[in-house]
Structures are given as structure tokens and as C-alpha cells.
């Protein structure tokens, strides 16, 4: 027994000592940054992923023609140095950088850009699915097979470092959309060599045979793919030949830690240097411990929708009465996480199309009662069905149950009779919301994909939509005009006008834009949270 015990003690103290040694190394050289993520990325082909964790890594490896100025929605040059649009905004010409190489040593040029766009345009089968080609679907709408109309028509190589995109109709949001990670330019050589589009298996169980997205993602970005042990760690290293300012971080590591409490403890224990999606209740605790809390402005909006096919929501006065009846200020102040901001319209304040003078609906129960009286409805007419969920939480709708309870009280106080309709979020609630089957009133919202008002207004109010159930050709036309307007100031003006019209009609009552938090060790600086998740680690350095 005794020698064994001694051995055990020696082993344990050795392990503990090793621990101290590693910790010291980690903080002394500061060259490594370890990021705790919510989950392992799915794949690293930016054009074929939907989840945030895949995009977060992919944006460090791949770059788009344009990007967003850190922390804002302002479009700035990236792989393109400048761009011009034709008067009709259906042709876009980009001048490209002439000093860029892909990580595999091949040259970045106009041919490479068109190769990528044509690849995306020619996706087939499941590669076209919204679960894979999310951004292409959201921005372009269709593929080469013509099953649904595509905004994209063709890419023309004008010179070695100049390309022109031909669009099927005018679009200005096209420019901002190009900044999202889904339009990151990959090395054509690597795409072919590592079978990026080699989807095999059978139709019922497609298997991505290629290794491009898992072992050989090759772009032009500030970080180069190094290794990926699934579910353990994904390592990138600094691109020494980067065309821009090289990153200060030598090795960038992503480790998946699914549980939010475990992420916090990993940061506290020094296993990781930063993590995303801090639990709201941990914000103050971590701050008091000396960690940096970085707030990402909410690029989303949560709302209380009213299906206009269902009476009494076909009555504008009733919808306005609902808006006045809700004490949103109190709900957001008391129940929403820190970082949430009361919303008075659908376009988030970080976009320049956000209007300052939309109709306001402050909490005013008397005004609500007055509007109900003006509507001429009473008694059974005022019985409404309110659908909600309590088994899930969304970034834009963090506390659905509390919101339902508060709003139900507010609505009954002014004379509505509320029939609750609780549904499991997935799939019943979601399915009901998208097929006009909620019974009338329900909570939902949207997270923005790219920094353009079209992403918020056109998507929802630009054409007939099952979620709101109304036809308003004047508004549809206004939004179509705004989307295609080339003069950016005029465009903002049109969107502000549309925002006013929407808030006059109140198809839904916007509730809040909800921000999120990242926590970071005090040893680092330079990380800029972005409302659209364009967050380059190349700006991070040790203090």
C-alpha cells in the first residue's frame, strides 16, 4: 500500500504542478486566443452553412468582396477596392485587389470571383436547400435551374481584376448582402481538388464526400485553417502572407462548450479566453470578477403579430388599440435581459433607414379604450385568440411566457377577452405562424441576416405574407421602389416612409431589439462585436 500511495501522491502533485505551469505560459506570451463556442461548426464552406458557429470560423478564413466596418452596418472595401452600379442598379462592377493570394498560393482574380458565383448559382439538389445555401436563397432567391426566379443572372470577367455582375432586376441591397459570410470567396483550385460539391451517398441520405469544408477550407482571410478535431478543438493560425495588417494572435482556437454555465466556468478557470452568448444573469457577476463584457447590439426585432384575416384584427383601430394597451416599457425593463431596447419600428436603430418619426404607441390604456369604442366593436367581437409558446426562447423573444402573461393582463384591462393558445414551439407553433393558423395574435420576431432594411421590411411587408395576412399594394410598391433605389439617401428616405406606413397600419406591435453579450479575459483587447456577426479576430491583441 505505502509505495502505491506515494506514487499516487507524486502523480497527483505532478499533475497539479503541470497545471500551474501551463496557465503561466498561456497568459505570458498571449499569442493564443481560445474561444468557447456554443457548438462545433457543422462545416467550413461559408456558402453551405447556416449556423452561427460555422460562420464565425469561416469569416476568419474567407473574405467577401466587401465587408462591414467593424461594429457597424457600413459597407466598406475588402477584396474589392471600389464598385459602381449602373443607373438602373442591375449591373454592378467591382475593381478587385491585385495583391491577394489564396492560402494555397493560387492567385485571387476576377476569374476566381466568377468561379465562386457560378458555383453557387449552379448548386443542385439538397445543396440548394435553405439549410445549406441560406444566404444565396435569402439574397438571390433562385438557382440556375430556374425553378424560382433568381436575382443573379451572370458574372462577367471584365479584366484581370474587374468583374461585372448582371442582375435580373434592380437591387441595391445586393451590395450590403455581399458582405455576409455566405459570399466568402474560396480558392477555385481547392474547391475542385477537395470535392466541395461532391455530394454522394443516395438521395435519401446525402453524404458530403469532399474534404473542402472539413479539412481544406482555403480562402484569402487573415487566418489559415490548421486542424480540426471534431467536438474538441478547431485551430487556425495567423496568415503570414496576409494582404492587410497581419493578425496579432498567432493561434486562434475554438472549443465547443454546449452548456452556458460550463462556458462561464471554463472562462473563470482560465481554460478559455472568451465566449459568446453570456447568460443574462451572469453579466454582472462576470463583470464584478474583472472580465470584459462586450455588448452586441440587437440586430433583431421581436413582435406581437396580428393576423388580419382573423377578426377583429382586420380593423385598424383595433390593432392600434392593442398597441396602446400593451405596457411594453414595463415588460422590457423588468423581464428582458440586459441589452434589450424597446422597439418602436421593425428596422433596428443600427441601420440608417431607421426612422425617427414613426407613429408612437406609448402605454395608454385610455387611448386604447377610446379606439375600441371608435371601432364600434364590443362584447364577443373583442374575444381574441393569443398563441404563445413556453418551451423555447428566441434571441428576439427571450421570455415568451412572461410576455404572454403581461400582455394578456394589459389586453383584458382595456376590454379584450383573451383565449390562450399554447403550442409547442417546434413544429406546431412555427407551423401555425406560417400558415395563418395561430387563431389571430401571436409572438414571434426575426434575426437580421444582413445589414439592409430590405432584410426587415421587404421580407415581411413587401408582398402578401401568411404571417400577417394582408394585401396592401401601395405599401408593396413603395417597398419594391425602395429596394431598387440607387441613391442611398433617397433609399433611406423611402424606407423611412415605408416604416411610417407600416407603423400606422400596425400589422404587428414591435416589442424589442435584444442585444447579446460576450465575455472576454481582461488580457485581450480589440474585439468589436457586430450586429451582423462580422467580427474579425484579426483585430484582437494582448494588452
Amino acid at each position: 500500500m505505502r509505495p502505491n500511495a506515494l506514487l499516487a501522491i507524486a502523480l497527483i502533485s505532478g499533475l497539479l504542478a503541470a497545471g500551474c505551469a501551463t496557465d503561466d505560459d498561456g497568459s505570458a506570451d498571449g499569442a493564443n486566443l481560445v474561444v468557447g463556442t456554443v457548438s462545433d461548426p457543422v462545416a467550413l464552406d461559408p456558402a453551405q452553412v447556416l449556423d452561427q458557429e460555422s460562420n464565425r470560423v469561416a469569416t476568419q478564413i474567407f473574405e467577401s468582396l466587401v465587408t462591414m466596418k467593424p461594429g457597424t452596418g457600413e459597407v466598406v472595401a475588402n477584396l474589392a477596392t471600389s464598385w459602381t452600379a449602373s443607373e438602373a442598379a442591375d449591373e454592378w462592377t467591382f475593381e478587385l485587389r491585385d495583391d491577394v493570394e489564396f492560402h494555397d498560393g493560387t492567385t485571387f482574380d476576377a476569374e476566381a470571383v466568377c468561379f465562386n458565383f457560378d458555383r453557387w448559382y449552379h448548386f443542385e439538389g439538397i445543396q440548394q436547400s435553405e439549410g445549406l445555401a441560406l444566404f444565396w436563397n435569402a439574397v438571390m432567391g433562385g438557382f440556375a435551374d430556374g425553378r424560382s426566379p433568381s436575382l443573379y443572372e451572370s458574372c462577367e470577367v471584365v479584366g484581370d481584376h474587374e468583374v461585372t455582375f448582371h442582375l435580373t432586376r434592380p437591387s441595391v441591397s445586393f451590395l450590403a448582402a455581399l458582405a455576409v459570410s455566405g459570399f466568402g470567396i474560396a480558392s477555385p483550385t481547392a474547391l475542385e481538388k477537395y470535392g466541395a460539391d461532391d455530394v454522394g451517398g443516395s438521395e435519401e441520405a446525402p453524404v458530403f464526400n469532399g474534404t473542402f469544408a472539413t479539412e481544406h477550407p482555403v480562402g484569402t482571410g487573415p487566418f489559415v485553417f490548421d486542424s480540426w478535431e471534431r467536438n474538441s478543438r478547431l485551430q487556425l493560425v495567423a496568415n503570414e502572407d496576409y494582404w492587410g495588417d497581419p493578425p496579432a494572435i498567432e493561434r486562434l482556437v475554438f472549443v465547443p462548450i454546449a452548456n452556458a454555465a460550463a462556458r462561464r466556468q471554463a472562462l473563470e478557470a482560465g481554460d478559455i479566453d472568451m465566449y459568446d452568448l453570456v447568460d443574462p444573469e451572469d453579466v454582472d457577476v462576470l463583470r464584478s470578477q474583472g472580465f470584459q463584457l462586450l455588448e452586441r447590439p440587437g440586430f433583431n426585432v421581436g413582435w406581437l403579430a396580428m393576423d388580419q384575416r382573423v377578426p377583429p384584427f382586420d380593423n385598424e383601430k383595433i390593432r392600434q388599440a392593442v398597441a396602446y394597451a400593451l405596457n411594453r416599457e414595463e415588460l422590457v425593463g423588468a423581464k428582458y435581459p440586459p441589452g434589450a431596447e424597446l422597439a418602436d419600428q421593425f428596422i433596428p436603430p443600427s441601420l440608417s433607414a431607421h426612422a425617427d418619426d414613426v407613429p408612437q404607441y406609448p402605454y395608454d390604456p385610455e387611448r386604447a379604450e377610446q379606439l375600441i369604442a371608435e371601432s364600434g366593436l364590443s362584447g364577443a367581437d373583442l374575444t381574441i385568440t393569443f398563441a404563445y409558446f413556453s418551451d423555447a426562447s428566441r434571441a428576439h423573444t427571450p421570455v415568451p411566457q412572461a410576455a404572454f402573461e403581461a400582455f394578456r393582463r394589459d389586453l383584458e384591462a382595456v376590454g379584450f377577452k383573451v383565449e390562450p393558445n399554447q403550442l409547442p414551439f417546434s413544429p406546431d407553433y412555427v407551423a401555425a405562424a406560417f400558415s395563418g393558423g395561430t387563431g389571430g395574435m401571436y409572438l414571434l420576431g426575426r434575426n437580421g441576416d444582413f445589414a439592409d432594411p430590405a432584410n426587415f421590411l421587404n421580407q415581411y411587408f413587401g408582398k402578401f405574407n401568411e404571417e400577417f395576412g394582408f394585401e396592401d399594394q401601395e405599401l408593396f410598391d413603395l417597398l419594391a421602389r425602395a429596394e431598387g433605389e440607387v441613391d442611398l439617401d433617397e433609399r433611406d428616405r423611402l424606407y423611412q416612409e415605408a416604416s411610417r406606413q407600416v407603423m400606422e397600419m400596425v400589422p404587428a406591435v414591435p416589442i424589442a431589439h435584444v442585444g447579446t453579450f460576450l465575455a472576454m479575459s481582461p488580457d485581450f483587447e480589440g474585439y468589436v462585436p457586430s450586429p451582423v456577426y462580422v467580427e474579425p479576430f484579426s483585430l484582437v491583441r494582448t494588452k
Partner: protein
Amino acid sequence: MLRLVGQRLAQTAPILFALSLAVFAWVRALPGGPANALLGEHASPEAIAEVNAAYALDEPIWTQYWRFVVKLVQLDLGSSIRTRQPVMDEIASRFPATVELTVAGLLIAVVVGVPLGTLAAKYHGRWPDRLSVVGSLLGISIPVFFLALLLKYVFAVELGWLPASGRLEPTSQAAHPTGFYVLDGILTRDGAAVVDALRHLLLPALALASVPLAIISRVTRASLLQVQTESYIRTATAKGLGPLRFNVHHLLRNGLLPVITIVGLQGGILLSGAVLTETVFSWGGMGSWMLTSIQYRDFPAMQAGILFLALIFVLVNMLVDLTYLVIDPRLKRAE
């Protein structure tokens, strides 16, 4: 012996078949489909239909089951809807993590539990015995996840002696020929990697060991107390055998049979997913994988994962049975 193995394997087949049917039906009875989980809340009905068609989820359930069985026989488990990787690869990358953790946990449980139980039996009714009874009660009654959180909080967060998550330092560049990180370190003669892997293993293994340790020490104690009253022990004592020979050949060999059953059962249970411990320590094993697969309604992963774990459980039990034969030759004759 070989015939016995064959018999056992043959018995396994109908069990697995019945299980495959149950799993298949259960997975599809869950509310929500993979398309919703995969595409998010704003998916269009067309996109959902497309995913369902791509994964053949729009076909009659019997057709789907038939395809599944045909594939299964060809050892093709399909590909995960969530990660798009072949499920076989997913299991291959996660199972070693779970095995490593289970082995470490059981090792601690046996190495500490058996001597503890022996000591308790030897000093029956005196303070070492009482202490071990109280200790094992504690071990059984503290929820594993709570112990895991406690260990992590004290040793990782507060004292900072050991890491709080993962299997290796995030920046580690150690090679992994087998996927068992401690073994990999030894094979590649990378001392630092072995220490690194052991440091990460220690806390989760301790947490995981608590219940089996308590059970093992109790069973050892009870079994030895019972064996001590047997006539052949009295004979051995009367013969004046030395303490080592007496303890190992007579007392332990006879007293350990029930302990082996327990080790086998616990091993099977731990292998089939120490979900909570793996989650607390972000251990990339089978347990946390199954949990995520269920959340995402990842049908192929759930089906294959559950069947695989069932197979492992059955195999571990068979191994335990065979171990009896080695320890107690009387059983062989009985066959």
C-alpha cells in the same frame, strides 16, 4: 467457451432487432421533425418539404424502416442530418472519449472500492467499517452532476489546479492515432500530452466513479462477510495459510464474483452515456452527442447511436459472463 460466445451472440440478434423497431418508432413519434430543427423558424414550407424529401422522411414509415434495416445490415448507418458526417465517423470520433472516461472512472472505483470494502469486512463493526458504510451511502446519494459541478467549482474555478472542460489543452497539437488520448500520448512518446490528458481526465473520472465506487465497496464488504463464514475458509485458516495466499486465493477469489457483476453492469451503464458528467465537463463523448442529436431530431444519429449503445451494453454483459468462467471453473462444468 467458443460455443458459448456464439450462443450469446445469436441471442443478441433478436434483441437488437426488437430494439431497432422500438427505436425507429419512438424517434418518429417525437414531436417536430429534423427539417424544423435544421432550417430554423423561418423556413418556408417548400424548404421543409425539400429536406424531408432529401432524407426520405416523406415516405411511408414501413418503407423507411425497410431501407434502414437494409442499410444496417450493410453496416451503413447513414449520415447525420445535423452535421452531415457519416454517423459511423461520428461514433468513431466520440466513442473513444466515452470509453476513456468510463475506464478511468471504473479504475478509480475498483482500485479504491475493493480495498475499502475489504477493509470494512476485516474490521467488521468497528470504525473503518462504519466509516466506509457512511461514505458509500454518501457516494450513492449525491447526484453525480452535483458532485461534478462541485469538483469543478472547487478544483478548477476556485483553486485553478485542474482544467474545467475538454480533454486536452485547446492549443494542444498532440497526435491522435487511436482517439484514446492517454494511450495516444504513450504511443507517440509524448509525455506532456499524457500529463495533459490525465489532468483533464481526473475530475470527470472522479465524479463518474462516485456511484460505482460506493456500490463496489458495499458489495465487496457484504460478499466477503458472507464468504468468511464458509467452511472452506475455516479450513484454510486452520491450515495456517499465509495472509497473502489466504486473501487472494480463498477470500477474494470467492468473494469477488458479485463485484465483477457490478463492475460489468456499471461499465455498461457508464458506456451508454454519462450524459451529465460529459455535459458538465464538455467531454466530447457519446452522452453529450446523443443529447444534442435528440434536441435536433437528428433521426439517423439517434437511431444508430441508441442501437450502438445497446450493442455495447449487451457485449459488456457477455464479457462479464465469460469472466465468471475464468474465475469460477465450476460454472464451466455446469454449462
